[in-house]
């Protein structure tokens, strides 16, 4: 049984049919990536999984249990955490408070302190800025904080929406290598990316999304050599 599964999910924004029957599965321990161009429905898929959008049709299953009518905060309690698009740091909370709020569902203070320490080991920059307000951080620092914040909730599945957006190339590589590390330590990851090259370099499998539909699903190495993917998303002619 997959850890996270979508079966024929249809999601609408008002009358706009954004997801037209998405089916995908993420197994325990995997990094699965969703690639596709702007407006393909990648973020909508993550927002539907997190319960911010309710699918009009289809099922979302976590551990075999339906979560498509569960409110967002209950989905977080199950262990599905999201680092949303645009980072969405709380601008007037300090770095420490942003991390604390990421652990809102937990009450094991000692383990939370250890996890916060772990986040600071991953991102020493955040420790330097621990009492600064989130809104004063640079884009890269905010991305680190967004990932760290999601880790503070001890996710079983981590949903990452465009972690490379707006970052300098050197920082992108660093972020992706940390994502790989997090996965190696046992967290299952569903990664949404426009930077298909980087995403396919660390993922085990991938899905290609086009206008709300999955047009291709394969292992990451196979997608990297697929002609259509190479032309459309990797910029190789």
């Amino acid at each position: 049984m997959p850890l996270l599964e979508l079966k024929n999910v249809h999601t609408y924004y008002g009358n706009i049919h954004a997801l037209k029957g998405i089916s995908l599965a993420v197994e325990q321990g995997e990094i699965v990536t969703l690639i596709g161009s702007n407006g393909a429905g990648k973020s909508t898929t993550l927002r539907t999984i997190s319960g911010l959008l309710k699918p009009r049709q289809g099922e979302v299953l976590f551990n075999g249990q339906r979560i498509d009518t569960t409110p967002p905060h209950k989905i977080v309690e199950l262990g599905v955490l999201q680092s949303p698009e645009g980072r969405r740091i709380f601008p007037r909370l300090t770095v420490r408070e942003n991390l604390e709020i990421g652990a809102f569902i937990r009450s094991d203070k000692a383990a939370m302190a250890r996890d916060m320490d772990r986040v600071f080991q991953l991102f020493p920059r955040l420790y330097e800025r621990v009492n600064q307000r989130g809104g004063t951080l640079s884009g890269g620092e905010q991305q680190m904080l967004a990932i760290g914040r999601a880790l503070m909730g001890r996710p079983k599945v981590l949903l990452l929406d465009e972690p490379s957006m707006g970052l300098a190339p050197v920082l992108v590589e660093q972020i992706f290598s940390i994502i790989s590390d997090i996965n190696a330590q046992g967290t299952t990851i569903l990664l949404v990316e426009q930077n298909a090259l980087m995403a396919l370099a660390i993922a085990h499998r991938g899905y290609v999304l086009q206008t709300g539909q999955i047009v291709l699903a394969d292992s990451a190495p196979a997608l990297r050599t697929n002609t259509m993917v190479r032309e459309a998303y990797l910029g190789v002619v």
Partner: protein
Amino acid sequence: MAVEATTGPEPLVARRSFRSFMSEVFGPLLQVLAFVIGSATILGLLVVLVAAALRGTRTDIDLLQGTISILPQVIVDGLVRGFLYATIALGYTMVYGVLEFINFAHGEIFMVGAFAGAFFSAALAASGMLDGLGPVLFVLAAVLLGMAVSGLLAMSIERVAYRPLRNAPRLVPLISAIGVSLVLQDVMRMIAVNSGLGFNASFKTPDLGAPIVLGQMQIAADRTIPISIDSRSLIFIIVAIMMVTGLNYLVNITKLGTAIRAVAQDRPTASLMGIDVDRVIAITFLIGGALGGAAGVLFGMRVGTVNPYIGFLPGLKAFTAAVLGGIGNITGAMVGGIVLGFLEAFVASYLSLFTRGQFSGPSYADIVAFSILILILIFRPSGLLGEVVTQKV
């Protein structure tokens, strides 16, 4: 996070330092204190200067001496009015913070709190226990009762009249709030009149003690006057400061407070952190309502009578105080309340003195205070402490 860091550098655990704890709990209070001292000093100097300038025009009384002799009472009056508006304004600003919605029924929540206190004191008086309770216990019990009644009322109103309209156009919950406020006025009038308490219900208290003399002030070579504060005003100020300190602790330090601030800044993302946004909003109404209820009890206790319409004007002024301080900003609401309270107290006391009674101060206080507010808002639309938040996307 399955693997714990067992080796490597010193753990980088970032605990809140004692210093940051103190600054987050008492920092806003110091800011309020600065505005208290600032308002009192500036307005005090202003009236003394005006009095000195006008001194020659009056032969009947010594204007300067008269001005100085009432100054301490005016400052106490300003403090009481200021804390009244501040505690009510907190309810507006907290709800605005999480919902960007003006809860126009908040003045009536204040009024219901005042009536809860009046019912309590009437029940005690009827059973002959009023004087036996003692002032401290009486004030404590009445304030806690007012907080409970108003807090639960505010929470119920949110559940019934606002939450179903959460996704409606913004004017719709506003209309609903105005409706709620009319309903509360008339339901309370019905209860008050039929319960025997009466439309103008008297708020009895046990003997709260004589005015406390703080010192003597020499106003002329041969004349000193005592500077004193009456016990009801003192109780008002002490309880208000305690509540404001408690609120700062709750909002700035506790987990619940962090959740309230997170919801205020970004509701969908807060829900992605596992925060039950509806619950946090309900708790925000509970807290704001409880502060309003406490203010109502203190107000009723000080004035001595309450009626179902006493919520309207203080509510409107507290809303203005919240806007003046920067709506959505908790410290701003307190500062706005203080500034407005002092402006009003000074105008109410000195206007008729300076105009030979041609303009009666209390009736013109609102006009002058609101005109000054309009000026402040023209030049500082985000309020005294309102900040322009730059948010990177």
